[in-house]
């Protein structure tokens, strides 16, 4: 069964450094998402991406964040200058061609980001 994959599984970085989190969505999916979860708490929406542009973003997704689909298979989340409060589990998700609402989003296993 196809699945969403994410790398790395754990990223440790110093405050102020740039990090790039990588995701490979399910191959025929066209809608991509990033969510974050702090310490096993609520899962929060960051951004959605369709047709090579951001379709929606939350207030969490400020100028420090960016997303890109560089090569038709990967979907990346970049944090330019990490802060301590960026420490969280980051989940990538993708959904099928029909798009929202109502389509099931399939989640990757997550990348745990630790900012020191």
């Amino acid at each position, binding site marked *: 069964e196809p699945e969403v994959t994410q790398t790395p599984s754990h990223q440790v970085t110093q405050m102020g450094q740039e990090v790039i989190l990588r995701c490979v969505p399910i191959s025929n999916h066209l809608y991509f998402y990033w969510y974050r979860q702090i310490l096993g708490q609520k899962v*929060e929406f960051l951004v959605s991406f369709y047709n090579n542009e951001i379709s929606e973003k939350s207030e969490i997704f400020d100028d420090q964040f960016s997303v890109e689909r560089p090569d038709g298979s990967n979907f990346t989340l970049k944090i330019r200058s990490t802060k301590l409060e960026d420490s969280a589990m980051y989940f990538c998700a993708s959904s099928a061609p029909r798009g929202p609402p109502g*389509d*099931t989003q399939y989640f990757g296993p997550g990348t745990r980001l630790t900012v020191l």
Partner: protein
Amino acid sequence: AQSVAQPEDQVNVAEGNPLTVKCTYSVSGNPYLFWYVQYPNRGLQFLLKYITGDNLVKGSYGFEAEFNKSQTSFHLKKPSALVSDSALYFCAVAGQNFVFGPGTRLSVLP
């Protein structure tokens, strides 16, 4: 604005007993409702969803959920709990993106 509430942080149930994890929602328009489960150090796994049709939705691992429009609820149920069902359960409402509830930790005791 869409929102989801899960009124119980923790639910404890004995193995073999029925379980219910509660969810209420607030949306404008038709609700698209989902349940996901998260095991320790894992991602979110899809259990089931309600889009339209029958109010009782059946999903993975023997779980089902009942959509109740008048009570704006979408409670997750299972007739007989297993120890392996112990996990964190999230209810979500879908629009352009998902809005998740705060999660309910289910502990099934042997």
